[in-house]
């Protein structure tokens, strides 16, 4: 077993052990903290497909995170009020259906956004994905039907068949299971033919084209899959907070998702998990000491970018290895 695999297993166990222990000791706060980590990690796993494997620096993934959140919020609101969504279609409080809607909506919206953005590269791509996310953000702010700027509350956490989701530990376990499934997906994808083409598109798009694979197609699919995973995380996040607002769509959120990946280690299977753990820990630990924790977060981030480019996993498990 490689050192990275061992570190990965330890991280997975640690994330599971903390809320189990907290539950045993009657400390629900730490369960919520771990749930937050799992969900943010899931969102970053999504982004890691585009950014880590494909080298696509999307600065607009908050769009999908927020859309997933609004999918959950809107469906739950209609289910709660008993008012049909449109054309007689009712809302729903069932998580599996909500997730499906979130994933499909994000995929469908990611396709046109990706199709336009992927005509460009480099800084243009960064800025265009940012701009599209802002467009959706401003739409959410100025469209009053679902709370506009104030956001939308979910009065009762949505339901999952056979599980009492209002219990913090149960909800954590759902999120944890989804995270593990997404990590499995990432792992399969990375090792597959598609993954090979995607990673080649990052390393050298001309080479990929010269063997007859159109980089655009590969990237577009990766972008959409990436958006779908991040959207799923958004739906879970809305249910965690029982609230969704435009802040989930904001560019700070997009920045945070990138930060998670870089803190953990770009392109690595457990990079987002390590990053999310570190990020939430910094937020919690610094937030306990000073109101100005973001100032120090900025300094830490600056230090990581300038001096520790492999992130936490780079530190723990050495450099990335390819077959």
């Amino acid at each position, binding site marked *: 077993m490689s050192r990275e695999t061992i570190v990965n297993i330890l991280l997975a166990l640690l994330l599971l052990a903390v809320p189990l222990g907290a539950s045993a000791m009657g400390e629900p706060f730490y369960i919520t903290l771990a749930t937050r980590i799992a969900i943010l990690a899931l969102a970053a796993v999504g982004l890691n497909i585009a950014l880590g494997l494909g080298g696509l620096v999307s600065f607009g993934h908050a769009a999908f995170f927020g859309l997933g959140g609004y999918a959950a919020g809107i469906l739950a609101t209609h289910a709660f009020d008993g008012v049909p969504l449109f054309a007689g279609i009712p809302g729903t409080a069932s998580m599996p259906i909500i997730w499906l809607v979130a994933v499909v909506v994000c995929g469908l919206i990611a396709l046109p956004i990706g199709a336009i953005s992927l005509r460009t590269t480099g800084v243009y791509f960064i800025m265009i994905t940012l701009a599209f996310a802002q467009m959706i953000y401003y739409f959410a702010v100025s469209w009053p039907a679902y709370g506009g700027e104030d956001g939308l509350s979910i009065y009762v956490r949505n339901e999952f068949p056979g599980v009492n989701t209002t219990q913090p530990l149960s909800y954590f376990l759902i999120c944890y299971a989804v995270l593990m499934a997404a990590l499995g997906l990432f792992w*399969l*994808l990375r*090792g*597959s*033919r*598609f*993954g*090979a*083409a995607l*990673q*080649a598109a990052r*390393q*050298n798009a*001309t*080479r*990929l*084209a*010269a*063997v*007859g*694979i*159109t*980089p655009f197609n*590969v990237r577009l*699919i990766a972008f959409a899959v990436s958006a779908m995973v991040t959207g799923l995380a958004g739906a879970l996040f809305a249910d965690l907070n029982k609230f969704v607002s435009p802040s989930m769509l904001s560019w700070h959120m997009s920045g945070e998702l990138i930060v998670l990946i870089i803190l953990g280690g770009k392109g690595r299977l457990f990079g987002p998990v390590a990053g999310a753990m570190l990020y939430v820990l910094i937020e919690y630990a610094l937030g306990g000491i000073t109101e100005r924790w973001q100032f120090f977060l900025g300094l830490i981030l600056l230090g990581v970018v300038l001096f520790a480019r492999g992130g936490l996993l780079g530190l723990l498990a050495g450099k*990335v290895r*390819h*077959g």
Partner: protein
Amino acid sequence: MVEPVLEIRDLRKTFGALKATDSVSLDLRPGEIHALIGPNGAGKSTLIHQISGSFRPDSGTIRFLGQDMAGLDMAARARLGLGRSFQISSLAQEFSALRNVMLAVQARQGTSFRFFRPVMSDKSLTEPAMAMLERVGLAGRAYVAAAELSHGERRQLEIAIALALGSRAFLFDEPMAGMGPEGSKALTKFLDGLRHEAPILLVEHDMDAVFALADRISVLVYGRVIATGTVDQIRNDPEVRRAYLGEAA
């Protein structure tokens, strides 16, 4: 007369005021090695780029296997069977030599949109890829990252990739460069046999190799083809001697 595999007619390309390709016409016939020679900056690589689809010509036509290439991008041309190597090698740097070739194998199979099965344990990819590396003599370096290969080895790897594509014509841009006399000799021998698989348009500075291999030679100077002919015809062409070999007339 047999149909040429590749047919270039009146191709033109300018960079600003510079005529990099100036009314170039040439053919690549089945089974032949057609060498393209000329001084540095003559426009040889620019021509290869236009054939393979990385540059768009200003005017003129390129037909490959009877089909007009206008409007087809690089990937589409590669799928039709135009395999190329780059003068400045262009590889997936982090991937091993084997994975670089495997990428070509999956491209040829048209199976790049499969999302789950792991490639490294997939014999339908690894075996053909390894076979290509063996053909170019790079099997011993299969698991070395492309970035860590020597210049000569990268050239060999590019050729292995073109082979794995099952190319119907090869465009090789200075494959011998950086190879050393031993390597050049081995590659010359290899290309000699390869022409029976598919014809080769060979840009090369190594004149020993060119004279040993070429069925025909075209001489490019300032973007123009000043002569096309057999080795002997080119050797004795006064204009070539003047313009290219720098002789007084």
